[in-house]
C-alpha cells in the first residue's frame, strides 16, 4: 500500500466483513515523539485466540475466493520497517482492535494519504454502519461521527453524493486547520 489511508480502507473491509455496526478510525500524530498511530476498532464478530495468532500469517484468510490474505501482514510490514509496532486484539462477538504505530521521521515511513477520501468512501459504501473518525495532532483533535450527520440530515440518505462531498470537505478542512497549528 502506498499510504496509510489505503491501509485504513483495507483493514476497515475486515470490520465490514465481520458484520460490525460501529467502526472507529483514529489517527494520532505526535510530533514530539515522531509517531503516527493508526487505530481501527470495530464491534464485529471478532476472532478466537487461535485464529488471532495466525492472522499475521499471509497464508491465513477467512475468505473462500482465494488462499492468501495480505491486508494485515502488509500493514504490519509497513509499520515494522519504520521501527514502529503492530498489535491486534480481538474477542469473539465483542470486536477487534488493530493498532499500528509508525515512526514518521523514518525514511521508509509511508505518507498519510487521502484520509478524507477514504472515510468518505467507507461511509458512502456502508451507510448502515456508524463510522467514528478521530484525527488528533499534538493534542488538538477533530471528531466526525456519522450518527451526528445522520441526525442533521434527517431523511436524506447519508450516501447522497452531495452529502458525501460535504463530509469529505469537512474532514479535509478540519485536518488542514489542525495541521496548520
Amino acid at each position, binding site marked *: 500500500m502506498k499510504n496509510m489511508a489505503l491501509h485504513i480502507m483495507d483493514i476497515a*473491509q475486515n470490520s465490514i466483513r465481520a458484520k460490525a455496526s460501529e467502526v472507529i478510525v483514529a489517527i494520532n500524530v505526535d510530533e514530539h515523539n515522531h509517531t503516527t498511530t493508526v487505530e481501527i476498532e470495530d464491534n464485529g464478530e471478532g476472532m478466537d485466540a487461535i485464529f488471532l495468532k495466525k492472522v499475521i500469517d499471509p497464508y491465513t484468510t477467512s475468505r473462500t*475466493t*482465494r488462499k492468501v490474505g495480505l491486508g494485515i501482514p502488509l500493514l504490519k510490514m509497513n509499520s515494522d520497517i519504520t521501527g514502529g509496532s503492530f498489535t491486534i486484539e480481538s474477542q469473539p462477538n465483542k470486536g477487534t482492535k488493530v493498532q499500528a504505530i509508525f515512526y514518521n521521521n523514518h525514511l521508509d515511513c509511508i505518507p498519510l494519504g487521502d484520509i478524507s477520501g477514504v472515510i468518505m*468512501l467507507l461511509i*458512502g459504501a456502508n451507510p448502515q454502519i456508524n463510522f467514528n473518525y478521530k484525527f488528533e495532532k499534538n493534542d488538538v483533535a477533530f471528531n466526525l461521527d456519522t450518527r451526528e450527520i445522520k441526525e442533521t*440530515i434527517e431523511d436524506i440518505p447519508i450516501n447522497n453524493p*452531495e452529502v*458525501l462531498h*460535504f463530509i469529505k470537505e469537512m474532514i479535509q478542512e478540519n485536518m488542514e486547520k489542525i495541521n*496548520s497549528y
Partner: protein
Amino acid sequence: MSKVKSLADLRKIKENIKSKMDLREKSDNIETVIQVKVAMATCGIASGAKEVMEYFITELHKRRINAVVTQTGCMGYCYAEPTIELSMPGELPVVYGDVTFKKADEIMEKHIVRGELTDGIIPVNYLTVD
C-alpha cells in the same frame, strides 16, 4: 483563516439537497437504479480501486444518473484489479477487469450511458457473491 465546515453548514444546505433529491425521484423510477460495485479488497485497493470508486461517485452525480456505488470484496480476479461489477436495471451483472481511469470513462460513456457492452468484460457466468 478560511472558514472550516461544520455540522451547522450541513444543516444550511440540507433543504437545497432535499429539493434536488425530490426532482430526481420524480424523473427516475426506483427500478432504474444502476449498481456499480467496486472490488475493494487488498488486491483492489493496491491497484487503485479507491480512485476508480471516487470517479464513479462524482461522474455519475455530475451526469445526473441515478446510481448506487458500493464496495464488494475480492471476487478472485486479483490479476485483473481494479475490477467492478456493473448491474444495469433488468440485466445480469457484468464484471469488468483492469478498470483504469480511461477504462472507467469508456464504461461510463458506452455501457452506462448508451447501454452497449464494451471491451474488458471478464467472461464467466457470474452470480453476485454476498
